[in-house]
């Protein structure tokens, strides 16, 4: 049961990852791309959690946790750059 669910989840998350990347490449605007990168980070979290379930190891959750806490910092910095150019003022 879990194996089947994992298989489906893996496929969907991988698809989401690919789609986010396509959006990142296509744009067309910078905000689109920034959001695409942010989504990629979230996809990565999902992938790590799934891998943790699949391999039965909690070490994967560490990396997921770290992405969850720090992944948004890049997005904040990029957005601040668009807003003011100067990200630390």
């Amino acid at each position, binding site marked *: 049961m879990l194996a089947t669910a994992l298989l489906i989840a*893996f*496929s969907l998350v*991988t698809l989401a*990852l*690919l789609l986010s*990347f396509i959006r*990142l*490449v296509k*744009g067309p605007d*910078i905000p689109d*791309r*920034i959001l695409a*990168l942010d989504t*990629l*980070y979230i996809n*990565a979290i999902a*992938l*790590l959690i799934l*891998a943790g379930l699949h391999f039965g190891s909690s*070490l*994967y959750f*560490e*990396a997921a*946790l*770290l*992405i969850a*806490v*720090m*992944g948004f*910092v*890049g997005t*904040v*910095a*990029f*957005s*601040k*750059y*668009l*807003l*003011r*150019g*100067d*990200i*630390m*003022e």
Partner: protein
Amino acid sequence: MTLLSFNIPVVVLLPFVGAIAAAWVSRYSRLASAWAATIITLLAMAFLAPAAGLPFQGETLIQSWSWIPGIGLTFSFRLDGLALLFALLILAIGLLVIGYARYYLSPKDCMGRFFAYLLMFMGSMLGVVLSENLIQLVVFWELTSLTSFLLISYWRHRQDARLGARMALAITGAGGLALLAGVMLLGHVVGSYNLTDVLAAGDRVRASELYLPVLVLILIGVFTKSAQFPFHFWLPHAMAAPTPVSAYLHSATMVKAGIFLLARFFPVLSGTPEWSWIVSSAGLITLVIGAYIALFQHDLKGLLAYSTISHLGLITLLFGFGTQLAAVAAIFHIINHATFKASLFMVAGIIDHETGTRDMRRINGLFSYMPHTAVLAMIAAAAMAGVPLLNGFLSKEMFFQQTITASQVSGWAWAIPALVLIAAIFSVAYSLRFIHDVFFNGKPVDLPKTPHEPPRFMKIPVDLLVIICLAVGIIPMFTVAPVLHVAVAGTLQASPPEYSLAIWHGINLPLIMSILALAGGALVYTARKRLFAWHDASVARWDARIVFNAILGSLDRFAVGVTRVFDKGSLQNAAVWVIVTALTAGFIGWMGISAPLLGARELLPVDGVSLAVLAVMMAASLMTAVLHRRRLVSLLMLGVVGLVVSLVFVKFSAPDLALTQLSVEVVTVVLLLLALYFLPQSTPRERDKVRIGRDIAISVLAGAGVAVLTMGVLTRELTPISDYFLLNAVPGGGGTNVVNVILVDFRGTDTLGEIVVLALAGLGIYAMLRGMKLPAPDRDSQGRLWSSDNHPEIMRTHTRLLFPLMLMIAVYIFLRGHNLPGGGFIAGLIAAVALIVQYLANGIAWTSKRLRFDMHWVIGLGLLAATATGLVAMGLGYPFLTSTFTYLDWPVVGKFEVASAIAFDLGVFLVVVGATVLSLVELGKLSDSSHKAEQQKRRTEVR
């Protein structure tokens, strides 16, 4: 453990510690640093005192600790007669100079800096003379060059001081390198770097075929330091230093370091024709040239500088004779020269201080203004001239005797006493000039100040030195004889030969030479006007500085030329050189190997998810390059690469690397965005088709090469060293996270080095960016004005909420780092990111107001914690940074393990946080100051 088992290193290291103290206390009171320096010197003397009796009993005290046995380096010290004499000179004259400098320095000069430099120099000199290990001796020797550079350039606002210091450093530093090479060769010949072994192996060294290179290299070190011809010219330029520095460096210490080395290696290297020829000709030429030029100096200190050169030549010449009696005379003259020259420099300083000039054409007739000083100066100068009943007379007599002995060697050797006599005549003449021109000879000419006697305590050091001159000159047997005896015994490493210190030996050749010199000197001085005119018209134009600058200039141009071939100031160009070199080297290495490209190891199965993720990474890498002209988009692509790389690390069971990569990724994005603000938003198009083709070819080749290499490595079964660490992490380091145990325990010293580099980089960035202003764009790449909302409310609120959460994760990752993925480095990065987000979202002003501690302190505390952990282990008798661990039982938490390495890891954590935040925030402030400039500009435009 008695005092005699560790007191010598204490004597040497005390001044270095004291230097910090002296600099520190000067914050509170100017005079406190002078007192601190005095107390430190007295303490050093007190530590030396218990051991001072040993050389008199014929014993040599050696205190040794193992340091890096693999390269023959021990931390070891030696006290014999020669070392004792020099240590006493350094400390005693140092003490007098400190007292003198306290009155000499004006209120504008920073006392703390002066005494800190002086103490560091004193420590370096003590290290040179008290070292048993030769490599350690060279280290201290280099330290004397560096600290004397600081002392000479003490008045750093003066160009002549800076140039003089630079010249001294260039010459003595180059000599230090030669000395290092010589010492390495000598150690190779002897098979040990310890002086005890080297001194016992004299015959072997002299018979070795490496003898000549050893001799020449060591002598280059000696001659540069002791200002021997042709390296003599740096010394007069070093006179731009404050006079107490000159009095110290050029009487008893810096220049005597070279002489000390001659004496130290006398039993090993002397006694061959090569030694005699090189040493005595350098000494003789220096003696004559120095004495001649000294007479024509109008600057008081210039006269003393050249006279110092001349006297150093005299001592070198004596060592060059290579006989035991000549060594006695040389050691004796070292003592005498130190006393009378120090006092003369101090007098010159007093005169400079009280009249405002050092030009002897203007300072005349000072006797009536400062009779006390005048009497002191006259006695000291008479000692310099070699007048009977003064110490200079005794050693000069011995010197003349030795030249006469040497003249009987061959037919041409009569030239030695003849030239020496000429030098002696000039020596008397310049001494006379020092007395007559300054204190008599009419009235002062147009002085900036009305001269009067200096403060009483400024004269006391001179009083003491002059009393020594007299005491040694009149009753040598009761004053200098015992010290001279042990110093000679220490030099020769044997019992001294028979010699007499009597004042009267009857009428003999040396006495006649003395009388001739005194009379001739008086004659030359009376004819000085005509001589000056002739000198100015002919010889005065020669200046060794011109040659020095020409050599230095062409060296500079050569270095710049070579550099410019490889580095045209373009990053692309530099990258091409690096990559092409790597390619060529890799290709050459590949050619000779017949083994198959790929190993036999089976490939791992590939799953669909990994394939898709890796495809994303490859596409993103490609897009980064393709879109490189639009820099922001390229940076976003780079973000994808970083993310996927960390996923790959997770997949291949390297969680530590994954966590590090994730944190570094975030910091990198912030850093690049900070920089991008000041850079053009797009890269100009490269039009040169040939160059594009070349670059593509190089990058494809390099990429393919790395891929093939990686495949080659990955498909082979290797037995890496990791097994050792996996086995020993728990028993040896008390942690199950091997990566962290390696970082903080097995390779702890490496990590310590790395965090020092990180700390320096952070501080360096801070120093370079502080106060810098760059023009910042006021519109974005599409030409729109920036938003006026600096810190949107949503962003502020959310990041503030996340702050404690991030810190908690940092603490968590830190604490469990020893056993599970994590540790100080990753935790430091997470904490740094947590802080930086606050700067991003809330602004520098808001965050700085709430974050009260200074990042400099964080870095400093981190380094201190890491080093202290290592030192505690040393203090308990284990090697540096040995870690220990134990298990504790805590209620609720249960049993857990505590390693001392956690203190070290805390240091790593603090340095990472401090350096990262310091440098990024400083970059952020860069734009802050630019904004202010921008706003000001706008305001003025509106008006």
